[in-house]
Structure formats: C-alpha cells, structure tokens
C-alpha cells in the first residue's frame, strides 16, 4: 500500500492510498505542490482500488446514482473509460472516497497516459471546492502573478490565454502564484497550482501554451520525471486587481466597459459553473452527483447556492479595481500592455 498526502495551506488534508503506485504518481502530477509527510487525520481520505459498493437500502436516480444519507455511489464513463466511485460522509467532517477504474483504453488522449486524472476532475475537485467553501474560502478559476506584495488576478475560460499572460508577465519580472486556480480568503490570495509540472515544462522549454505532437511527447517524459519547479512560487499575497479575459475573433484587444461589479461577479460565477461542463462530452456535467443527492435530500444545505457564491465573491472584490478585456484568439505578446491595472 502506498500513501501520499497533501496539505492545502493547512485548511484541508487529503490522503490517497493505493496498491498500484504509478496511479498515485498520476495524481501527484496535479497536487505535487502540496505534498507533505504528515499522514494523519486527513479531511478527505481516498482509497484507489477495486471495491464492493455498500448499496443496501439505497435510493437511486437514473439507475446510476445510488444515494443514502451522506453516501453516494455511481458508475460513469468518459470517452470509453469507465470508473466507479463511492463517497461517504458527504455532509460530515471527514469524507471517505473509494475509486476504481477497471479498464485502460489506450486510444483516447488525454486519458491515455493518466486515466486516473479522471478521479481528480470528476470526483476530487468538486468535493475539494465544496469543502473549502465550507471553511469560508473560495476556489477561483483564475491565474495570478505577484509583485511588491500584491496579487494580480487573471481570470477567464480555457483558451483565454491565462497561461500565456502569466508566462509573459513572469518574463517581465512578476512572480508566479498560480496559472489556473487560486484560493480566495477575503482579500487574500493563496496559490493553488494544479499541474505545476505542466506549467513548469511550458515555462522552461516553450514559452507558450500551444504544443505540437513532439512537444507533447517531451512533456510526457518530463512529467514522468516531475522535477521540482524551476521558479519561485508565492504562497500568499493580497488582492490588488482582477482582469477578466474573453477570447474573440476580433483583430485587437478591446476593453469592455459595460460590465459593472455585480456583472463581473456573475461572470466569475458563470466561469466557475462552466468549468463543470467544458472538458467533457455532450450530456456530461462534472459534480452532477451533488444535484442527484439534493434531489433525494432536498433538505440538505451543505451546498452553497449561487447567491452565497456571489456574496462570498463580493466580500473579496468589493473596492478592487477590475477590467474586462476582449482578446483575439491568436496570441501576441503586446496584449499584456493593456492587461494590468496599477
């Protein structure tokens, strides 16, 4: 049995145990930044390997989600990769997860190399966001850079050049906080670098987000080695400004001034919600098991409503200068000039 533990800024501890160890490695590529030696009292305890679900006296939905109080079991598939998972203690302090994917089908990228990343995307991430929200925080889908003790956030959907902006700003002497996700605690920004190795690879060798096939092969070898990051990661900083990016097929950068603070917060909320539907195939929604659970137990209140989301964000962004930018799909370095508000 191999264990690996992550400590997310002392708010949350995750322990992952598995018999097969290259599988833990795959997940480690996502969370390596938070790895710690402390193995005790995890808030989320994950066991990867085959298991028999405890389906006695369950409610069920769509013949797929099996639910009882604090318990969900479901089987799902994405791009022909099938998996099953069981979540216990949903509304309690400690969540126990069992997860198993049976077949590896080596034909579909990206699950080809790391089929267990499915676990991160479909199971762990929604639970993590929920847990951290309960602790008064907000997991925001945004990149961030740091200078003179202040954090500059860059939010946007995938393909909005968040990573490119972060790369380019690092060249200009800004420090790295995260390229994809941050955690907000009122006006404080904490780093939450998903796949820091992936970003490191881009930073070291490419200097841009787009990759061709040979570069992808090199990336694969690089991830197997997964060396420590070649740059400094700022753990914590205080919020200075936010830039929201929308990719367009217009030729140049354009400042959108019709959006007010409420509108901007809504955009952040929609951004967050879309994150649950974008990577996956037609008819799939990540975190749908939460809704299934709420269908059976409508009295449960552990999931935040959209209003609570907006209030939590309001607490962070009230009085913070922001800017909404339309950027062309094709990246050019001079875009950064209009990006930051000082």
């Amino acid at each position, binding site marked *: 049995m191999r264990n690996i533990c992550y400590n997310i800024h002392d708010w949350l501890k995750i322990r992952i145990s598995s018999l097969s160890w290259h599988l833990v490695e795959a997940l480690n590529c996502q969370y390596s930044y938070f790895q710690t030696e402390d193995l005790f009292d995890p808030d989320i305890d994950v066991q990867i390997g085959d298991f028999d679900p405890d389906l006695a006296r369950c409610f069920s939905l769509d013949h797929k989600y099996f639910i009882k109080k604090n318990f969900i079991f479901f089987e799902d598939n994405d791009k022909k990769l099938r998996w099953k998972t069981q979540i216990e203690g949903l509304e309690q302090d400690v969540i126990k997860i069992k997860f198993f994917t049976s077949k590896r089908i080596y034909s579909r990228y990206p699950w080809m190399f790391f089929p267990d990343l499915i676990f991160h995307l479909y199971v762990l991430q929604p639970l993590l966001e929920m847990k951290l929200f309960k602790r008064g925080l907000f997991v925001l889908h945004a990149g961030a850079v740091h200078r003179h003790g202040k954090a500059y956030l860059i939010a946007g959907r995938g*393909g909005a050049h968040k990573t490119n902006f972060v790369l380019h700003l690092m060249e200009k002497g800004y420090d790295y906080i995260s390229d994809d996700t941050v955690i907000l605690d009122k006006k404080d920004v904490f780093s939450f670098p998903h796949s820091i190795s992936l970003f490191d690879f881009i930073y070291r060798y490419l200097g841009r987000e787009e990759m061709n096939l040979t570069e992808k092969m090199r990336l694969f070898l690089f991830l197997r080695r997964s060396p420590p990051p070649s740059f400094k990661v700022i753990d914590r900083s205080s919020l200075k400004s936010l830039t929201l990016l929308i990719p367009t*097929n217009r030729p140049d950068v354009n400042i959108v001034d019709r959006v007010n603070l409420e509108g901007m917060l809504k955009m952040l909320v*929609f951004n967050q919600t*879309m994150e649950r539907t*974008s990577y996956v195939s*037609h008819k*799939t929604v990540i975190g749908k098991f939460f809704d299934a659970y709420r269908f059976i137990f*409508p009295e449960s209140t552990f999931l935040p409503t959209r209003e609570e989301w907006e209030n939590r964000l309001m607490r962070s962004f009230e009085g913070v200068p922001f800017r909404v930018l339309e950027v062309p799909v094709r990246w050019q370095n001079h875009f950064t000039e209009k990006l930051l508000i000082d």
Partner: protein
Amino acid sequence: MEKIHFYNFHNLLRVQVIIRRPHWFDSYLENTFRHYEVEALNSIDLSIDIGPFSPKIGECAIVDGKYFVRRDYIYYKTKYKIAWWETEIRGIEKERTDVGIQCNPFGRAVIPGETIYNLIRFKLATRGYPLVHGSAVGKDGGAYLFSARGGTGKTISTLNFVKRGFDYYSDDSVILGDHEIFGLIVPFNLRFTYDVEALLGVKFSPKTKRELFLKRLLYFLTLGQISLFTTLEAKEVFAASIRERALLKKVYILFHGPEFAIENDVPLEWVVNDLLINFQFECPELIGLLLAYSYCYPENPLSHFWERVNQQLYDSLSGVESHRISIPTLYSDEVFSRVYQEVTG
C-alpha cells in the same frame, strides 16, 4: 423544396418549423409535435429553419472554443454519437427568436428531442410557463402531477390511471401555469416492458401490430441488445381520455427507494428544488448555451434565467398539496395500488 409546419401550444407559444431539402429522417421530426399542428399562425414566437446556412460569426466572443456569442446571437455545434448539428440563434433576448439548424441526416432524428425541445422549453420559460418533466392525469377537471426522473414509473402509472378512468394530460412533459397545467402531448414511446393493448383495452391498427411484432422478435432474439423504439400517436393509445388543461390539485415527486414510503405535505421549497433539478437534468444543452451567453452579457436578464424558473415554479405551486413518494425499483401492481390509494385516498 421546402415544407412549413405551424404549431400552436395552447396559445402559450406559437412555433413555425421550416424544413428545407426534406429527407426521410424527417418523419420523426414531423411527428413529434403533430398534436399541436395548425394550418396557419398570425404571429410567431419561435421560428426554426432546418437546412443549410452559413453562420455569420464575425466579431464574436468565443466561449470554450464552442459557442460564438454576440449581442442577441449565439452559434454552436453539437455532436452526439454519429449525429452532428449546428445551431444559430438570432434574437435570443427578443419576443421572436429565429433559429437556424443544419445537420447531417442522423442529426435530423436527434434534434427534435434535443435542440428543438430545448428551444421550446426556453421560450415557454421566458414567457412564464416552465415545462416540467413529469406526467399528469386527472379527474373532474383537477390534475395530479407526477414528477420523476426517467425510468421511475411515470408512464406505467399513467397507463394504469387511464385504465381506471382517469383523464390523460401527458406522460412525459407538463407545462405549468398559474396553479394549472397544460399537457405537452408528444407521440407515445412504446417499450416492451408492458403490454399497452391489454392494459388499456385499445386495438392497434394491423400495420402497427405487424411492426410491433417484428421489433419484439428482434428484441428477444438479440436478448434485449437491440431495442428499437416505436412511437405511436397519443390518440391511438389514449383515445378519448386526452384533455388539454386542468387545475392542479396535487404534486408528487417520485424516486426509487428501498421500499414504498410517502412523505406528506412536504415544504414547497423541497418540491421546487426537485422540479428544478429534474428540469435541468433534462436539458444540459440549454444550460450550456445560456451559461455561454450570460457569461458574455452578465447584465442582461437571461443571466437570471434559472432563478426566474425557480420563482415561476414557486408561484405556480404555492398552496398546492405536495408529496414525495419513494417507490421500489420493481414497479408492481401492488406499488401502483398504493400510489392509487394515496391519490384518491
């Protein structure tokens, strides 16, 4: 060559469907809303144009590389197994919405249940009439609404109720008005798990019988691997029991559970919560396109779409008796008789 169909849904929504370059796959499309077909319409709320078009996607924001969004305009492409279709929606914020759809032949079989249904849901909801996923039967002008996920037993309960002399409003989707319901009658989807002829005492036409026999044979020969669906006109199945609208008497939420159990007089919030989740589970495509549009134009009223639906459900159900029933996975006659007792009780 083109065909034009006009549909009038209870005077709540008027739809025009133009089919260019007709194809034999269209029969499914043409049958779906046949119950509401009319000769002509004076005003149109939703116009759907099926045929090739070239999307005008200049100056658009691109969300997730899929949705092309501009004020009052969305274009996106969807794939489902071997079917693909492209949708262009013009006037999404306006009273009249114009939609262009182009697709491959398989797409023509999929779009009625996906995009077109979703557009109807969307237009009905913006006009204040949410389309609830559920069946409805009734007696003496009062209706009972059963909302459940697919496969829970909506259809089989409906058949059983109709057999006992109840009126039929719908077995899949119900339009919710102010304390009243309107059926949305689409062709009846026949499965082999129950014998409709024996259950309702209706006689199918020889052609239908022949078709059913062959499909059932195929079903048994392939050990249930190939299950071709058969749709019948609702008229053929429910005949004289069909009614259009009624006052809403009671709402039931059904779901699978370990045993038969009923929660009486549940809070309105719970029922609305369940109806909304059920609604959203039915239309991921609509959720996606509304998100993309609201993301680009957060200040416009469509960004409150789901809050408004929630409020509409709340308003139209306030004061209506509501219950939640957990029923066993195996829907036996005994289960139905318990449900029947609860309803008539």
